[in-house]
């Protein structure tokens, strides 16, 4: 790795002193089992007004790097060696790594020279203080403003980040804001003291693509206006391609590659970077497995025929008159942003909810048709064996106190299908099917990585030879390099077992890679249904067009923001809840 680092400093930097120079940074976490190096001998620099993207998969140490700069590493982490030089406008330099993490010197840098925004805007804002209180705090602390002056400044900041009605919004609480607005408030808070460097730690990961596009635009506009440098941490190569000047690729705490964005994307040197870019580009087209398949028999009688399905929670119409059908052997994608009702749809099909109205006609193997929306008792129990679910969170959906063989074998056991040695053999076979080593079956879920856990979840779903699997954001929590492996596994199983999938996702790349047909949901309604190619490349409905336009393309040469637009419903806004 050192050979890459020895290239630095790059020629452009020699002319002018960079704003921040990190040299041979090592951040360690002393654990009971020894010392864990989260960041290992990392060097990079950030110039005034430029954007450096630090990209890597989970556990790569990118977040710890960001926190090391401000010395706000979670306990028991600490900087072991290296230097972090902040070159100030007056010509002096300050080594942040040498400062006491609780001392006055580093505190005066935090928030004033270097500010930070975080991934989860809801939990990063205090639930019991108004947004205005939290913004004015930094102003009063660093700029010594008076109460009224700070308030006026906070209102103007909220206006700059395009929060509607800032005079009112300033006195609201974070939970009264929508996800995008919370992140805007976070940005306003970070920009309060006009910092020279903004560190953004996955600021758009928790947001919808259309909101993400707006937030990215906002950051880059503010960056130009203030001449501020940005250190942007993300796992999303699309975002990197859109905003970065320089890119630092991290893996297991080490820098794999460091250079201008053009070089990283178009002539990557390091094999890891190549793999990363490759797996992103892979999701830009159809899966090879699908290309090799014969075309789907569209004349077959649908396996599941959903007609006018509605699900209301009080006044909220989570599903509003949805009709769609699933053919045998088909992968049907359901795509939409948060709150569009796609998860409600999956759960209604599984009858985890009792739908308010409509039919779900399911054709059984013997040709009889039953309405999943109406059945109950033993019939529902029998149907649930044939409809299974794979969940989003590979950590939360496995019981930590059950071994993997118990997790996978449980459906067989509770349905009285297999026990003892027979059960054990079946579990081994299932684990082989999903690409796990059966000798590890007595381990507990914590011993497995995210991707492996999702394989366990898939094995559990196919235990009872189901005919339909509902996968709700099954790959969203996985790193890109693992994501397409799990998708490939799902498609292989589809060929082997003759499964039909309902694949719920917010990620158009995954849908394009995986699905035959796609339904697009918006506010509980299905606005468009069509072939995956058609919907992903040339959608008809304006909402789908807006959605597609907001997706960051993983190519730094394709940075045309002008074709992006936001969809507004033609029949005006119905309710006046402006803050939500």
């Amino acid at each position, binding site marked *: 790795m050192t050979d890459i680092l020895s290239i630095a400093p790059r020629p452009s930097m020699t002319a002018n002193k960079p704003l921040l120079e990190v040299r041979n940074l090592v951040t360690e976490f002393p654990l009971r089992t020894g010392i864990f190096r989260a960041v290992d001998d990392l060097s990079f620099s950030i110039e005034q007004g430029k954007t450096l993207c630090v990209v890597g998969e989970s556990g790569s140490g990118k977040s710890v790097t960001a926190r090391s700069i401000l010395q*706000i590493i979670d306990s028991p982490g600490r900087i072991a060696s290296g230097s972090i030089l902040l070159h100030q406008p007056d010509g002096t330099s300050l080594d942040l790594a040498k400062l006491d993490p609780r001392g006055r010197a580093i505190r005066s840098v935090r928030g004033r020279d270097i500010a930070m925004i975080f991934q989860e805007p809801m939990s990063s804002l205090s639930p019991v203080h108004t947004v205005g209180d939290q913004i004015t705090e930094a102003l009063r602390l660093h700029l010594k403003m008076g109460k009224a002056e700070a308030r006026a400044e906070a209102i103007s900041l909220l206006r700059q980040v395009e929060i509607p009605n800032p005079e009112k919004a300033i006195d609201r609480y974070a939970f*009264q804001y929508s996800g995008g607005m919370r992140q805007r408030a976070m940005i306003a808070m970070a920009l309060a003291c006009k910092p020279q460097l903004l560190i953004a730690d996955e600021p758009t990961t928790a947001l919808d693509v259309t909101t993400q596009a707006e937030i990215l635009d906002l950051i880059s506009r503010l960056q130009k206006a203030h001449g501020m440098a940005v250190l942007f941490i993300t796992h999303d190569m699309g975002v990197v391609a859109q905003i970065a000047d320089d890119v630092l690729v991290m893996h297991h705490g080490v820098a794999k590659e460091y250079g201008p964005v053009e070089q990283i994307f178009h002539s990557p040197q390091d094999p890891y970077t190549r793999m990363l870019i490759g797996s992103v580009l892979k999701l830009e087209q159809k899966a090879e497995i699908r290309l090799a398949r014969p075309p789907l028999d569209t004349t077959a009688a649908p396996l599941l025929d959903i007609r006018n399905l509605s699900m209301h929670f009080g006044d909220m119409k989570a599903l509003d008159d949805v009709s769609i059908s699933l053919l045998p052997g088909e992968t049907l994608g359901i795509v939409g942003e948060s709150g569009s009702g796609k998860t409600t749809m999956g759960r209604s099909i599984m009858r985890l909810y009792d739908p308010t109205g409509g039919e779900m006609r399911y054709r059984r193997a013997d040709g009889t048709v039953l309405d999943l929306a109406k059945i109950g008792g033993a019939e529902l129990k029998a149907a649930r064996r044939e409809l299974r679910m794979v969940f989003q969170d590979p950590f939360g959906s496995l019981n930590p106190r059950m071994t993997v063989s118990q997790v996978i074998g449980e459906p067989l056991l509770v349905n009285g299908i297999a026990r003892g040695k027979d059960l054990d053999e079946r579990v081994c076979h299932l684990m082989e099917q999903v690409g796990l080593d059966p000798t590890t079956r007595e381990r507990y879920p914590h011993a497995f990585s995210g991707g492996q856990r999702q394989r366990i979840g898939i094995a559990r779903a196919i235990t009872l030879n189901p005919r339909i699997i509902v996968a709700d954001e099954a790959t969203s929590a996985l790193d890109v390099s693992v994501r397409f492996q799990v998708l490939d596994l799902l498609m292989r199983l589809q060929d082997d077992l003759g499964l039909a999938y309902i694949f719920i996702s917010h990620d158009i790349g995954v849908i394009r890679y995986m699905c035959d047909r796609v339904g697009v949901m918006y506010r509980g309604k299905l606005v468009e249904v069509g072939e995956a190619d058609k919907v992903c490349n040339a959608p008809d409905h304006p909402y789908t067009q807006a959605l597609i336009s907001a997706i960051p393309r993983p190519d730094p040469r394709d940075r045309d923001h002008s074709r992006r637009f936001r969809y507004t419903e033609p029949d005006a806004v119905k309710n006046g809840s402006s803050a939500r």
Partner: protein
Amino acid sequence: MLKFVIKRLFWMIPSLFAVSFLAFVLIQLPPGDFVTTYIATLASSNEVVDQNTAAQLRERFGLDQPMLVQYLKWIWGIVTRGDFGLSFEWQQPVSGLIWERMALTLVLALASLIATWALALPIGVYSAVKKYSIGDYAFTAFTFFGLSIPSFLLALVLMYVAAVEFGQDVGGLFSSQYETAPWSIGKMYDLLTHLWLPVAILAVSSTASLIRVMRANMLDELPKPYVTTARAKGLSEFRLLVKYPLRIALNPFISTIAWLLPNLISGSVVVAIVLNLPTAAPLLLQSLMAQDMYLAGAFVLLICALTLIGSLISDILLALVDPRIRLE
């Protein structure tokens, strides 16, 4: 908010009636009544009461009437005249008896509450912030001792030490010369010198449990992202600690107000008896043992009313300090 409070107050009325009736029935459930207990007491000092006198007594106290009639008479007196009846044992109005003791009960309860909070909150915060430090271990050891030592044992030991080693006058809240004297500076001072012992005993166990609760609450809040956000803003550790995690960690304490108020009366019975304190708790126990039903009934009613008022106050306070409850 106002609507909510009025609704809650309105609902308190039927609950109070239901509880007062239940209390009345429960007190009468044990076999016998006050007269039987009275006769038994007299018999132990070799005085014999014949059946006629007993019947007369019952008639005088109204004990010969059906229970429902007794209850209605009692509750009618409370509602119309604020008259809680006459204590059989003391031959005094119940309200007078209770109020006489309430003032000192309140002083003792408030003093131990303040001592508890003043000690437990900072120690709990310190324990959480300096997790696994020597100080944390020391306080943890103290809390386990405090939780596991029965308070009456602590009372006996402390009384022994204070009386024998330091020659202090222990037991009660006043020295004998001030017991019946009117209030004066001297009596106040005398009260203070007597107060520290019961306060210390009462505070030990509640401080111990409160430290544990506070430490756990803070440990939940400290790693939350909003704390990191505040730190990234450049706030000093102390300021951010007080403003953010402490503020949220205090919320569970507000809910404890609901049972603090009834505890004024029924709490710390054992300690009060061991130390011979003139508070409400020993009187309550005595009235129950003597089947002095109007006095006991009034106590139960008071405890119930205080519970309802306490939970209303804590609900209102919670809504005031936590906007999530107020606005969602």
